[in-house]
C-alpha cells in the first residue's frame, strides 16, 4: 500500500510504499532529507532526523544526487562548507550563493527540486551537476 508522507524539510509530499511506523527513518524522495516518522494517526507526520549538521547535509546531498542521477565535482566541499556556515549563522542550510534566507533556498533549493539541473546542467551554486 502506498502512503503520502509529508516532508518537514521541503514541505512536499512523497509516496511511500509500505506502512510507516513511529520512529522509523525514511528518506524524502523529493529532497533527499532523512526524516523520522513522529506519528501515523490520524495522519503521518515527520520531522528531521536528529543528527549533526555536517552529517545531515552530506547525507541529504548524497541522497538527492543518487535519486536524480546527478554528480558532484571538486566544488562540492567548498559549497558544503558554505552551507554549514549558513546553518551555523541562520539555522538552516541556505544556499551559500544567495542573499535571501527563505525556505525556497534551503538546499536542495526549490529551483533544483523543480529540475534546474536537467535544464541548465547544474544548480545555481554548482553543488549538483547533470551526469552528462
Amino acid at each position: 500500500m502506498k502512503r503520502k508522507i509529508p516532508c518537514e524539510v521541503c514541505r512536499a509530499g512523497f509516496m511511500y510504499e509500505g506502512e510507516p511506523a513511529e520512529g522509523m527513518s525514511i528518506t524524502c524522495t523529493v529532497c533527499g532529507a532523512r526524516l523520522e516518522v513522529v506519528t501515523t494517526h490520524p495522519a503521518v507526520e515527520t520531522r528531521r532526523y536528529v543528527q549533526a549538521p555536517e552529517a545531515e547535509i552530506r547525507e541529504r546531498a548524497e541522497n538527492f544526487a543518487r535519486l536524480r542521477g546527478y554528480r558532484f565535482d571538486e566544488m562540492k566541499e567548498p559549497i558544503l562548507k558554505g552551507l554549514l556556515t549558513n546553518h551555523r549563522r541562520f539555522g538552516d542550510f541556505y544556499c551559500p550563493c544567495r542573499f535571501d534566507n527563505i525556505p525556497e533556498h534551503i538546499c536542495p533549493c526549490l529551483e533544483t527540486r523543480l529540475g534546474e539541473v536537467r535544464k541548465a546542467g547544474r544548480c545555481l551554486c554548482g553543488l549538483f551537476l547533470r551526469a552528462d
Partner: protein
Amino acid sequence: MIRLYGMSTCPWCRRAKQLLDHRAARYELIEVDLIDGEKLRKALAEVDELCGKRAFPVLVIGKTVVQGFKPEEIERALDREAKDPV
C-alpha cells in the same frame, strides 16, 4: 571601474576574486553578508537593478555585468576595460 559583489560563504565569489587578483585588477569588493545598515541596503538595491536576482558573484567591469563565475566572459570584459577604461 571594477566592482565585485559577493558573499563570504560563496566559493564562486572566491574564484572571481582570485581571477581578478591574478589579473592584477584594481577592484572594489562588497561582501553583502558582512555589511549591514545603509551600506547593505545600497548594495542590494544596486544588485537588484543590475541583475534582478540576488545571486552571487556579480561583477561589474566597466559597462559589462556578469552574474555567476564565468571566467571567459570576465576575461573578455577585463580586456575591454584595460583597453578602454570606463
